[in-house]
C-alpha cells in the first residue's frame, strides 16, 4: 500500500511540474517506458492517463487561436498517446490488476457503457486528424525530446520563416505610416514579400491537393497563418488592388447586340417553311382553305 502511494506521489509531482509551463516547454518524460519493470498500479495508471489528457486538452485550447496546435501540443499528445497505447495493449504484464481482480484494460474500458476514456481518446484524435497535424512534420521531427518544439517539414519551415519576415515588414512600416491615410507605405514596401508568400503557399497547398477533392490536407498551422496574413493585408492594411476594369464592356454589348440582330434578320428574311400537313377532304372546301399551300418542300426535322 505504501509503495503504491509512493508511486502515485511521484507521478503526480512529475506531472504538476510539467504542467506549470503552458507555452509548450515539455520536459516531462513519458512515464511508462522509464518505469521500473514492476507493473504499474491500475488506479495509478488511470490517474496518470487522466492527467495526461487534461494537459493535452489544456494545451489544445490554449493553442487554438492563433492556431498553433500541431507544434505546441505535439509532445503532450505523444505522451498521452503512449499511455493510451499501453492501456490498449495491456495483457496483464505492464499494468497490475484492477481493484476487483479483472485485468486493467477490461476494468477501464469494457465495464460501462459511457466509455469516458475511449471518448476522450476519440475527441483528441479527431482534433488531431482534422488539423492535419501528421502532415506538418518530417518523419523524425518530433523524436528528440530536448527540443522545445518539434521541427516542421523543410518547406513548411521556409513558409513560416517567410511569414515571420512579412510580419516584421508590417511592423516596421506600419508605425511610419500611421499618420498617413490611404494605401500606405506598408503596401508598397511589403508587397513583394507578400506575393512571394502567397506563391509559396499556393505551391504548398497544390502539392497537398489529392485526387479526392474533398480533403484539404495541408497542415492547419500553415493554413491559419496564411489566412491571418490575408486578413491583415486586405482588411487591416487595405492593400488589395483589385479594381474592376471596364475593358470587357464593349465586347459584352456587342455580343448581346449580335444575338438580337440575328433574330431580327431571321424574321426579316421571311423565309416561311411550309409543311406537309394532313388535310381533310371536305366537300367544297379544297380551294378555300385560306393561305394553305399544301404539299410543298420536304419537311424540316421538326421534333427537337
Amino acid at each position, binding site marked *: 500500500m505504501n509503495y503504491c502511494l509512493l508511486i502515485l506521489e511521484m507521478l503526480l509531482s512529475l506531472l504538476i511540474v510539467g504542467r506549470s509551463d503552458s507555452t509548450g516547454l515539455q520536459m516531462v518524460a513519458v512515464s511508462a517506458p522509464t518505469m521500473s519493470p514492476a507493473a504499474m498500479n491500475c488506479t495509478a495508471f488511470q490517474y496518470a492517463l487522466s492527467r495526461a489528457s487534461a494537459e493535452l486538452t489544456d494545451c489544445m485550447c490554449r493553442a487554438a487561436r492563433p492556431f498553433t496546435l500541431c507544434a505546441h501540443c505535439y509532445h503532450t499528445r505523444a505522451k498521452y498517446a503512449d499511455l493510451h497505447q499501453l492501456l490498449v495493449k495491456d495483457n496483464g504484464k505492464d499494468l497490475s490488476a484492477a481493484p476487483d481482480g479483472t485485468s486493467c484494460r477490461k476494468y477501464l474500458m469494457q465495464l460501462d457503457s459511457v466509455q469516458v476514456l475511449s471518448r476522450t481518446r476519440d475527441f483528441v484524435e479527431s482534433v488531431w486528424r482534422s488539423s492535419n497535424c501528421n502532415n506538418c512534420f518530417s518523419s523524425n521531427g518530433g523524436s528528440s525530446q530536448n527540443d522545445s518544439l518539434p521541427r516542421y517539414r523543410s518547406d513548411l519551415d521556409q513558409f513560416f520563416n517567410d511569414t515571420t519576415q512579412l510580419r516584421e515588414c508590417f511592423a516596421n512600416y506600419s508605425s511610419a505610416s500611421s499618420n498617413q491615410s490611404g494605401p500606405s507605405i506598408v503596401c508598397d514596401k511589403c508587397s513583394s514579400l507578400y506575393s512571394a508568400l502567397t506563391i509559396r503557399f499556393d505551391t504548398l497547398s497544390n502539392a497537398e491537393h489529392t485526387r479526392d477533392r474533398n480533403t484539404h490536407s495541408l497542415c492547419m498551422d500553415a493554413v491559419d497563418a*496564411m489566412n491571418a496574413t490575408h486578413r491583415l493585408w486586405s482588411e487591416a492594411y487595405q492593400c488589395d488592388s*483589385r479594381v*474592376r476594369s471596364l475593358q470587357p464592356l464593349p*465586347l459584352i454589348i456587342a455580343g448581346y447586340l449580335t*444575338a438580337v440582330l440575328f433574330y431580327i434578320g431571321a424574321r426579316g428574311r421571311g423565309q416561311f417553311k411550309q409543311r406537309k*400537313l*394532313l388535310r381533310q377532304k371536305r366537300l367544297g372546301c379544297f380551294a378555300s382553305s385560306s393561305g394553305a399551300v399544301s404539299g410543298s418542300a420536304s419537311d424540316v*426535322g421538326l421534333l427537337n
Partner: protein
Amino acid sequence: GTERQRLVDNSGEWYFESQHAVSGEELLSAKFESLDYDTCENSLWAAEDQSRTVWDLRRIELCRWLVHLLIGVVTGAIAFFIDVCIEQLAKVKYRYMKSMLDRCIFHDCLIYALLFCLTVFGEPVAAGSGIPQIKCFLNGIQVPRVVRLRTLVCKVLGVLFSVVGGLAVGKEGPMIHSGSVVGAGLSQGRAASFKFDLGIFEYFRTDAEKRDFVSGGAAAGVAAAFGAPVGGVLFALEEGASFWNQGLTWRIFFSSMTSSFTLAFLLGFYRGIPNDLSNPGLISFGKFDKLDYDLLHLAIFACMGVVGGLSGALFNTLNEHLTKFRHRYVTSKLGQLTEAVLVASITAVTSFVLIYTVRSCQPLGSDQMEYPVQMYCPDGKFSSMAALLFQTPEAAVRSLLHDPVGTYSVTGLIAFCLPYLLIATWTYGVMVPSGLFIPSLLIGAAWGRGVGIGLNLLFPTHFTDPGKFALIGAAAQLGGIVRMTISLSVILIEATGNVLFGLPIMVVLMVAKWVGDYFGTGIYDMHIELASVPLLPWEPPSRSAAVSAQAVMSSPVTCLYRQERVSRIVEVMQQYGNSKLWVRACIVDGCRSPVV
C-alpha cells in the same frame, strides 16, 4: 353546312377550319407513319410458328434476356464514356480559364478570357434531348431516323461538346435517347447507317419486338443517367405504357439494373477504387446527412411547388414561342449553326457578366470547388457566383445542395436564377443535343436555396439546412417544366437515396404539375404538338362524346369493294399513305371504307 359550323363553335378543340393556322402547328403532319405492331397472320406465318420446337422458343427467350443484358452493359459503357470525356475536357477548360482569369485581373486582358469559348457543336440531325422522339416511338409513331447508329454517334459527341462548351444543358435526355438507340440496334443485329447485318436476332426484327427492346434501352438510359433503375422502368412505363406486360417489366428492370451496375463498376475502376460501387449514375446528388421534415415544412414545400409550377409554365411558354419562331424562320442549316454558336457565346458572356457584377465573396474551403475563382474578391476568398457558373452544372447543383450555410447570399442566387432561366429556355430547342433536367434542377436549386437561406435567417433554430430547400426547389422546378409524375418522383427519390423524403418530393411534383397544367402542357408534350405528330393521347378531348364520326370523317368517302382489283387497292394505299392511323372500317351497304 350549319351543323358543322355549330360543331366548331361549341368545342373549340376541333380545328376544322382554322383561318390562321398557316404554319400548321395545330394540324397534324402527314409525314409520320405508324409502326406496325400487328403480326400478319397468314398461312406462311402459321406454318413457321408450327415449325418451331420447344427448344427454339427457349432459345428465343434466352436471346431476349441476353439482348437486354447487352443493352444494359453497352448503355452503361456509353454513359461512362460520356462522363469521363466531359470530366477530362472540363478540367482542361476550367484550368486554362482560371489561369487566364487570375492573370487577367491584373494585366487587363479580360477581353481574351471572354473570347475563349469552347463551342464545338454536334450535328443538327441529333438535336434536342430525344425524349419527345422516344415518347412518340414507344407509342407507335415511326419517327424517321430516331434509332439509327449515326444518330447515336452524333448525339454522344454532340452532348459531350455542348456540356463542355458551357451551354445550359444536361446530359440526361441524350442519355435516354442513346439507350434507346442501343436497344434498337442491338436487338436487330444490324445497323442501317453502316449497312452491315450480323444475321442474328432475326426473330426480333419486327416493330413490336423492337419497341420492347427500345423500352428496355430507354430504361437503361434513365438508370445510367440518374442512378435510378426503378425510375428507368417507371419512365418506360409512363411514356410507353400502351404496350405493357409482366415479362417485359422484369426484363426491362434487368436492363436498367445492369446499366446502372456497369456504370458504377466502370466509374469505380476509373477513379482508382475498383469494386467501389458508389456512383450509380451520371448525376449524383451527394450524401445527405439528415433529411427530416415536419408538417410545417410540408406546407412550405407545397408553396414552393406552386412557385415551381408557375416558373415552369413561364419557361414552357417562352420556349413555345421560341420554338415556333425557329420552326418558321430559322430553317437553313447555316442559320441553325449560327444560332447554336450565338447561344453558346451569349451563355459565356452572361456567366462572365454575372461573376463580374455580383459581389459575393466566401472564404476558401467552404465550397469544394476544384478551381475556385477569386475574381475581384480579397485574397483568401473566392467568388460564390463562380462556384455556380465555373463548374459543370451537376457540380453546381451539388454545391447548392451541400454547401454549409453562408456560402451563398439570397441576392446572388436571385441574380443567378433569372438570367439562367432565360438562357436555359433559349437553349432548349437549338440544334444541339441538350438535356433539360440539369438546367432546371439548377434553377430550382438556386431559388430553393434562396428560400432556405431566408427561412434560416428568420428562424435559425427551426430551419437549419438550406440544402434541403434547394433539393425541393429543384424538384419543383423540374416538375413544373417536364410534368412527369411517377417516374420523376422515383428518379429523384433514388438519386437522393432517402425513401422517406419521397413524400415531400411527391407532394411538390404534384402541386407543380397541377399549377403548371393550368397554363399549358409539359415541355416534351408541347414539342410533340408543335411538331404536329399524330400522337394519340390517353383520353379523347373533353366534351367530345357527342361528336359523331360523320362529323369528322372526310367526304366523299373512298370506297373499296369486298372484292377489289389489286391495282385499285395499291392506288388507294399509295394515295393515302401506308399510315394505319386513320383507317376506320365501317360496313355500310357492303362497302368497307378507309377514311382519311
